[in-house]
């Protein structure tokens, strides 16, 4: 009895040694997904601890440049300046780990169910300031946006506010569009969901996974069409996958190619069949093609 106790204690004490840590910083859209994936990775790799910090895509990229994080998560592509800064530090790895739709969200009591690109752009610019103008109640619209570190804001600004998805000509014409000055700014999706839950006349936007899963019940995600004459499509994994819901973007993990093996192991976990199935479970669309299995004969 005593001998087994000694062996057990020795094993326990040896396993209490320091763990290797992977730090992940960035996209608020990907925050919940990254924490979930980190926990699952830790189950298979007991000597590695995964720490996830939010702050937005810009925060992640900035910390990767300064060497304060192992991995940056971004819901937008790298800008030229960022790419140049990162490339100076060595080879870079940028992998698409998932896809996500951006959902336009309102209070569940709001009777509005769908909006087209131009109407959304006009609402966020303040050219439309009453729900009545888009077929809703006679109530003033309260616009809510994410802060400037957000990759979702960056995507929304280009593709919807400045109307890039209507073509290059429209984008050139609307490139100076700006948000209404009374727009409320929040730092993350939970703050946005809480604000909308308390303000029935508010409208905002966030990643489809955050809207449909993490803040389910607090918000209503609207159907969307680029042209008013197009069919309005609700944001869902299926509709992003079959390319019907057109407000979608890639979600990236960015790290230095000469990083420690632990980072390579984590990136392989995310792109593997197991990781991709977990990503799907969290409400995001998988990015890797189906796994190819090779069995030794």
């Amino acid at each position, binding site marked *: 009895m*005593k001998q087994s106790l000694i062996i057990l*204690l020795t094993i326990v004490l040896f396993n209490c040694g320091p763990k290797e840590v992977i730090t992940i910083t960035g996209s608020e859209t990907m925050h919940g997904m990254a924490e979930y994936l980190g926990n699952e990775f830790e189950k298979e790799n007991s000597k590695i601890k995964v720490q996830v910090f939010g702050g937005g895509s810009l925060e992640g990229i900035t910390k990767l440049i300064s060497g304060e994080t192992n991995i940056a998560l971004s819901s937008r592509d790298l800008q030229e300046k960022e790419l140049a800064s990162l490339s100076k530090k060595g080879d870079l790895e940028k992998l698409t780990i998932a*896809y996500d739709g951006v959902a336009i969200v309102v209070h569940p009591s709001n009777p509005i169910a769908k909006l087209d690109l131009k109407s959304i752009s006009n609402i966020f610019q303040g050219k439309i300031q009453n729900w009545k103008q888009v077929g809703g109640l006679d109530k003033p619209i309260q616009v809510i946006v994410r802060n400037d570190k957000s990759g979702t804001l960056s995507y929304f600004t280009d593709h919807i506010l400045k109307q890039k998805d209507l073509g290059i000509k429209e984008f050139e014409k609307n490139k100076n569009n700006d948000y209404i000055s009374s727009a409320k700014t929040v730092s993350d999706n939970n703050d946005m969901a809480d604000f909308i839950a308390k303000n029935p006349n508010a409208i905002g936007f966030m990643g489809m996974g955050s809207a449909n899963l993490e803040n389910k019940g607090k918000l209503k995600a609207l159907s969307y069409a680029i042209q008013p004459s197009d069919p309005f499509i609700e944001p869902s994994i299926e509709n992003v996958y079959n*390319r019907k819901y057109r407000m979608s973007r890639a979600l990236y993990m960015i790290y230095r190619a000469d990083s420690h093996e632990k980072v390579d192991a984590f990136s392989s976990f995310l792109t593997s069949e197991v990781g991709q199935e977990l990503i799907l479970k969290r409400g995001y669309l998988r990015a890797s*093609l189906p*796994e190819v299995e090779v069995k030794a004969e």
Partner: protein
Amino acid sequence: MTETEVQTVQIQRTTKQKIHRFIERYRLETGIALSTLIQALVIFFWYTPAFEYDNLDNLVEEVAFIDSVSIQEPADAQLDDGDFELTDKEKVEKKEDPRIASASDPIVSGATSPVDLTPNLKPEYTPEAKSAGITGTLTLEMIISETGEVLRVRSVGKKLGSGLEEAAISTFRRKKFSPSILQGKAITVKVLVPVRFTLN
């Protein structure tokens, strides 16, 4: 045996017995003490910081090295515009097919996904990997052209080793795909493929 010799043997036995009794009585404590000692030694050697060399010594070595190097101007040396020389990797990238740099993302662009027309063409286990019992998943990044040919394959993330990356890359390089289609037009796309190696 004299009386004194008998006494000495008795004393020796008594000491051994005492040690034996002590261990018997405090077996748990002795075990923990030994375990702690081993761990302390492991942690001590693990965390012992690397000794920094004396900078002056390094400087002396550098000066000695530089003194013994003679720089010769190449015969056909030309004045350049101050740009750095390209590294070998950059030279390879420069030679790459221009379609690689402009590869789109099939989902974001709204294009269809490429379909593997050669699903039975799979990499083979290398004898080294098989004998070393290596299993696991590696990820390949592929650029598939508008004609369905594979323009580039590279391994990303964790490496399995024993030639498995090379085997997978050379096999996937020979694959044929039906290309991604965007608004009726074939386009070049970038995709990731996990490849899992398993042993029976």
